């Protein structure tokens, strides 16, 4: 009969020799193997202190990006919400008032912007749909929470820190997470 895999093995049915019946040689062999593991390198990572880097294609928590002058990029066009297959994104648009030009990049902006992280499947389609480069998926995992309400991320939770006032936090949020791993 033709073998289905290349791992086929003929079963031996001959009775065990005395050495095999004693079992002790195989036990010592096994103990030698376990003993050698005492000195092997441990692949364990002490998690909260050390973190494995995510692959560059990893899609984690969202951020709403700002431009280099610290203005919000989002114009509340709603394309991300339309693209979202899980219907996790909702938003309300508002009109930029005179004197708010340093806050918002376009005449229209998102007054409310919410992502329900319980619905989100982290597909990244919102990122692709966005014409203004406003929404990005970072390399952070959404943290756990006790209630369902805590998983609905408001604009305050999503918006990236202002690069003009808080450069450091901005760089951190932009995605340096996971690079400090030995």
């Amino acid at each position: 009969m033709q073998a289905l895999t290349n791992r086929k093995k003929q079963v031996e049915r001959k009775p065990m020799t005395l050495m095999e019946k004693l079992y002790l040689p195989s036990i010592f062999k096994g103990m030698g193997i376990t003993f050698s593991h005492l000195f092997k390198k441990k692949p364990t990572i002490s998690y909260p202190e050390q973190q494995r880097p995510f692959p560059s294609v990893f899609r984690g928590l969202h951020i709403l990006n700002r431009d280099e002058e610290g203005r919000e990029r989002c114009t509340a066009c709603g394309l991300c919400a339309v693209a979202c297959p899980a219907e996790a994104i909702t938003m309300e648009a508002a009109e930029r008032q005179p004197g708010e030009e340093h806050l918002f990049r376009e005449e229209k902006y998102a007054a409310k912007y919410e992502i329900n992280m319980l619905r989100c499947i982290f597909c990244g389609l919102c990122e692709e749909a966005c014409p203004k480069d406003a929404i990005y998926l970072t390399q952070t995992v959404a943290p756990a929470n006790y209630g369902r309400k805590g998983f609905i991320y408001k604009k305050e939770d999503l918006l990236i820190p202002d690069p003009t006032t808080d450069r450091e936090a901005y760089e951190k949020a932009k995605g340096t997470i996971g690079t400090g791993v030995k």
Partner: protein
Amino acid sequence: MLLQIDWFIIIEKFILIAVIVTTALIVAMYSTYAERKIAAFLQDRRGPNRAGPFGLLQPLADGVKLFMKEEIIPLTSSKTLFIMGPLLAMITATMTSAVIPWGWTIDVAGRQVPLQIADVNIGILYIFGVVSLGVYGIMIGGWASNNKFSLLAAVRGASQMISYELAMGLSLIAVLMLVGDLRMSAIVTHQTQHGWNIIYQPLGFLIFFVCALAECNRTPFDLPEAENELNFGYHQEYSSMKLGFYLFAEYINMFISGVVMSTLFFGGYDIPFVNEAAWGAHWWVGLIGFAVLMAKAFAFIFLFMWIRWTIPRFRYDQLMNLGWKGLLPLALVNMLITAVVVLLLNK
């Protein structure tokens, strides 16, 4: 004076008991830590490393956790016996340490103080007697919890311990033939003079060691706590510190059996190729002997753990086969050969 009590003896023995029981408890405590660490190292992990430096406070954290846990006594259990089970296990585990010689006789302010609680002339028999009482801890625990699985596991454990005690006793008889004395101190002195018993009794030691594994319910003989066949074994209904005591008693047993094996086969507190008697009876000589004995015991504890994390558990019929058809005849043969050799040499 009819009732002249030597108060020094009483004080001396009390101090000895306190020191030895404390040592046994601390060693058992840190055996739990060592077990987890060794298991981790053998499996390329790190093991407990959060509580204190290198996780050294882990046993304390475990103890606190066990004490804080909710304690459940099943309604249909027999309450007195249910509470007595772990107690018995603990008591029998610690009682064995009484006849073990822990070091040379030392000189304390002109008094000869042997580092042994009781040098009874049936020393090794006493150990066997107490160890077989350990069955009660398992049996009562399993029976009192009124759970069929616990009972089955307890019966298994009891029959296993009794089966292996036979081969253990027979393998020991060969040693006693060589020494010609049942006193533990005499066994050690004989070995310091004539070389360790392991040289003359390698097969006897192997049988004794395997039986000790079975008596301590260590893997590959840990059938009384077979969690996958019998749900959890004889301590299934136990919770909180009562379960802790059962597990703790197992570690004390392991330590004591390591000490007993060092004493019987590896010269006890004797350092090979060193004439310790020439050093005199200083207190530090006693301490060195104690340290040497502990080192041997620790080596055995490590060996126990190493075996545990290497060899899978026996099937029950295999276990009984090995005990009755393998080890018992072997021990008998070993005894016979030793008897013949001893007879021929003494002629």
